[in-house]
């Protein structure tokens, strides 16, 4: 985990300072830029392992910077947003952001998200068996076990669970999940998603009312988590 570099693009000096201290104390190398233009130049000159990008930048819209970065930059980008502006966050995720955090955020949460995004970008997705807490998914045998006991899932439930699990730590938007599992004609049919998520939780969560495997991102989507 050492020596990975992170570029922070945020116009607020206080936030940059806070992020620098937090990230350096977690042994990341930190570069920062105060606006989009500077950020794009630094990212091109010293491509970092991950970028933290503020949605509301003074010179350009964060969304625009995100699009320009995504033309060539393939590593994780995490968006920072001032308020839970769901439409903007969904748009950023659609434009290729890996994750988002709403200010004010807890630094523990920030570091966990960064580590998870970096883990995913290292490409551990080829694994055949996904293990997470009480859950175990055998992708070859299409078998799901909870505490070593086989759980019967319908094929839609299985597809939904594996899609989330393969993107561990990453928030998947409602529209993305509906398009992938049910097809492009279903992207407005959020009730399918709600029903199936509830059903799935009953089968895999220890307490379906307090889920700790599939988390809800209110108004945005769902996230499969292994570490809290």
């Amino acid at each position, binding site marked *: 985990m050492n020596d990975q570099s992170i570029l922070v693009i945020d116009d607020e000096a206080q936030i940059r300072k806070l992020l620098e201290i937090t990230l350096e104390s977690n042994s990341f190398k930190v570069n920062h830029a105060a606006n989009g233009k500077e950020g794009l130049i630094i990212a091109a000159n010293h491509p970092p392992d991950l970028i933290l990008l503020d949605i509301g930048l003074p010179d350009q819209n964060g969304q625009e910077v995100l699009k320009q970065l995504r033309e060539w930059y393939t590593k994780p980008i995490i968006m920072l947003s001032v308020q839970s502006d769901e439409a903007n966050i969904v748009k950023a995720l659609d434009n290729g952001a890996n994750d988002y955090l709403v200010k004010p955020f807890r630094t523990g949460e920030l570091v966990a998200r960064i580590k998870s995004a970096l883990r995913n970008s290292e490409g551990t997705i080829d694994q055949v068996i996904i293990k997470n807490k009480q859950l175990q998914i055998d992708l070859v045998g299409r078998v799901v076990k909870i505490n070593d006991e086989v759980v019967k899932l319908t*094929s839609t439930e299985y597809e939904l669970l594996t899609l989330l699990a393969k993107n561990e730590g990453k928030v998947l938007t409602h529209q993305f999940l509906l398009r992938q599992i049910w097809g492009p004609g279903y992207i407005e049919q959020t009730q*399918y998603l709600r*029903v199936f998520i*509830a059903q799935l939780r009953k089968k895999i969560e220890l307490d379906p009312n*307090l889920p700790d495997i599939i988390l*809800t991102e209110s108004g945005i989507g769902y996230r499969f988590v292994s570490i809290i």
Partner: protein
Amino acid sequence: MFSYKLNTVQQFTIILLVVALVSIGCFLLIDLISYKIVALILLVTVSLIAMLFDIAPVLFAAFISAITWDFFFIPPKFTLSIQSPEDILLFTMYFVIALIHAVLTYKIRQYDKLEQKREEKENTLSLYNTILNSLSHELRTPIATIIGATDNLQSGSKNLSENNKIELISEISNASLRLNRQVENLLNMSRLESGTYQLKMDWCDVCELVYNVVKKFKDLSKGHKIQIEISPLLPLCKIDSGLIEQVLYNLIQNAITYIPLEATIKIKASYKANQLTFVIEDDGPGFPENEISNVFDKFYRLKNTKAGGTGLGLSIVKGFIEAHKGNIILENKKESGAKFTINIPCEISNLKAIENE
């Protein structure tokens, strides 16, 4: 006032019709009344019009009523010419009086409007003062805590025990959370006040929503018990889940702030006859009976209360529920404690769990 709803063309049309109708009426009765009385009747008509319409249409009314009177009533009839000097004088006077009438009535209305605006402005000003007073207290208290605590940590570090330091840091953390909550409330209030907020209606698993809100209090509730009673058969409801989450959050936050530690908060949700109902009740002391009707007012704070608060929390609750065309009732329970009942009309989904595919 009509002038706000009708456009100019409509106003002109109506005036033409009214003057025509009054004239026809007078024309039919001409055997009973003299043409001089007709002038008075037309004047009254113009005055009434002046009370309702804009200045241009009103002047138009004065003008056509004068012409009509001249053409149909002043001898020789059906000509615009006037022969007797007395009639010329009468006609001129009619015209001038009608114009003065129209202009004066219009001016009085303008003045009324100004007066109304001034009153509104005064009300807004006094509201601003209330806001500023309660805000400066609500925001400055946590800011003072943060400044004080950091000062201590920066300078007096030699005399501070490790325990004290930890306590100061946790005070800073609490104060900033409180600040954050107040800012959230202010933002919500301005969303409501601007009247531009569009409800984001989507299917919501109400059970999940309630547990989600309660989870946020896990670290904050100092020991209050929170019980949840929701039927597992509750269908998906179409609501703005962000707003309803805020509603429940504010109600629980309110309860936790005001009731004693050993009290229990109960949250129920059910659906019946096209209505989603939430009940949030506690077994604390309840609300003073004479203040129940005020608690949802903006910036209202209970008398004799020590705990802080901007007086925004419950008014936001009410605003968000009314945005859903629902209602909220607060009552004291017989056996002591407060009970909030929320009814929200909403659509439900008939999609059920699908076990066999």
